[in-house]
């Protein structure tokens, strides 16, 4: 699901000089010709570093993203909803695995990425640091969070780095179910009792602004954007994607009979766009810095899951070693 423009500083520069100028020109020519870059191809250090950071953050987001929804699996109101939610959460785990594999093709071991996440050194999407307080939150996440993720991810299917683009194609194919089940859930609540409708409205109120923040800082603040655009890692700007998301989502919300928590939201007849009020970037930055409502809880849950699974990893390795030894002994007979 969820990639996000998290990077606001530009560490490149020094490393760039180390790359051979002619190779850089040839590399850019390949990018400009819409050629895909594959793992063993030459690439600038900055390109590799940016991709490792972006793909691993994206993978971490998928894995941490299992937590807020996993929270409701045992409390789903029907068997149908429980099966759907289980399948969705399993998909998120799968997406994390596709992405870790794509990042590994750039030469970073998986264990190193997992370690960085567990040590609190790696970033993941800010959206998962909000709590899922009611069942309607599961609908709002599918509709809004996965909807925003689709907007973000569709252009990534054309990313210049082959393994990332291919992973994104798989992910996007699976993502549509996530959004539709969420909207259907919201629709059921919106057409239900007044209490259910209130619950749906409350979820929309809480998830709307965090969903808009998923597109990352405004283009004016996002320092990484221009280089990433030139490298075709990023293909559409944060603000353009956000606008596109708002334009398709607002009518969907109105269809539900719900209102958006933005008094300045209005349709600009001339441009056809829904204009929105200012986004609270201090909240975004606070969450990215580790101080959101659930940052600590999410990391504690990941660490516990990793530690609780240690015996399984050890047992599997011991079993494989035993079988390999047995085979070797048999071969020697």
């Amino acid at each position, binding site marked *: 699901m969820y990639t996000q423009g998290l990077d606001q500083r530009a560490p490149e520069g020094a490393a760039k000089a180390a790359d051979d100028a002619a190779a850089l020109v040839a590399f850019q020519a390949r990018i400009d010709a819409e050629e895909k870059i*594959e793992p*063993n*191809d*030459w690439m600038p250090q900055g390109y590799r570093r940016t991709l490792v950071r972006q793909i691993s953050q994206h993978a971490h987001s998928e894995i941490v993203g299992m937590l807020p929804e996993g929270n409701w699996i045992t409390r789903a109101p029907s068997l149908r909803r429980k099966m759907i939610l289980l*399948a969705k959460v*399993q*998909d998120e785990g*799968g997406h994390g*695995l*596709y992405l870790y*594999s794509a990042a*590994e093709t750039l030469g970073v*071991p*998986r*264990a*190193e990425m997992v*370690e960085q996440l567990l040590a609190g050194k790696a970033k993941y999407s800010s959206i998962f640091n909000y709590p899922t307080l009611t069942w309607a939150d599961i609908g709002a996440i599918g509709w809004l969070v996965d909807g925003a993720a689709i907007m973000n991810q569709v252009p990534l299917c054309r990313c210049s780095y082959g393994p990332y683009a*291919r*992973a994104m194609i*798989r992910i996007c194919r*699976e993502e549509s179910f996530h959004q539709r089940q969420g909207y259907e859930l919201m629709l059921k609540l919106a057409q239900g009792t007044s209490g259910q409708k209130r619950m749906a409205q409350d979820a929309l109120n809480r998830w709307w602004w965090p969903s808009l923040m998923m597109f990352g800082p405004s283009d004016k603040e996002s320092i990484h954007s221009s280089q990433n655009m030139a490298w075709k890692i990023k293909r559409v700007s944060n603000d353009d994607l956000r606008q596109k998301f708002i334009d398709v989502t607002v009518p969907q919300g109105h269809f539900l009979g719900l209102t958006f928590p933005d008094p300045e939201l209005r349709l600009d007849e001339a441009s056809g766009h829904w204009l929105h009020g200012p986004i609270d970037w201090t909240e975004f930055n606070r969450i990215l810095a580790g101080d959101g409502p659930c940052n600590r809880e999410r990391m504690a849950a990941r660490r516990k899951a990793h530690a609780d699974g*240690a015996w399984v*990893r*050890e047992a*599997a*390795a011991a*079993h*494989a070693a035993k*079988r*390999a030894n047995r085979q070797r002994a048999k071969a020697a007979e």
Partner: protein
Amino acid sequence: MTDNRMEWPLWEVFVRSRNGLAHRHVGSLHAVDGTMAAELARDVYCRRAEGVSVWVARSADIVASDPARKDELFEPMVSKVYRHPTFYEIPSDVKNI
């Protein structure tokens, strides 16, 4: 106790989407051995009936051509246009050729 950093080997996964088609590379995963890799491949790459058969191979066992030698390896084939049937001009009156 085992080292936490202990990394299971990487496997490349190939899936046959239906009978009669070739296996196609779909991605990779970590597993302790081939049996586990094939089982995990089901969950990671075939959650929506994407296939009827899975192959897994240790990534380390795959030998690939060098991208830097791409031109010398493949260019000679590109310039041999006479290897394609479209190179030859046959009058349209001639049938079944």
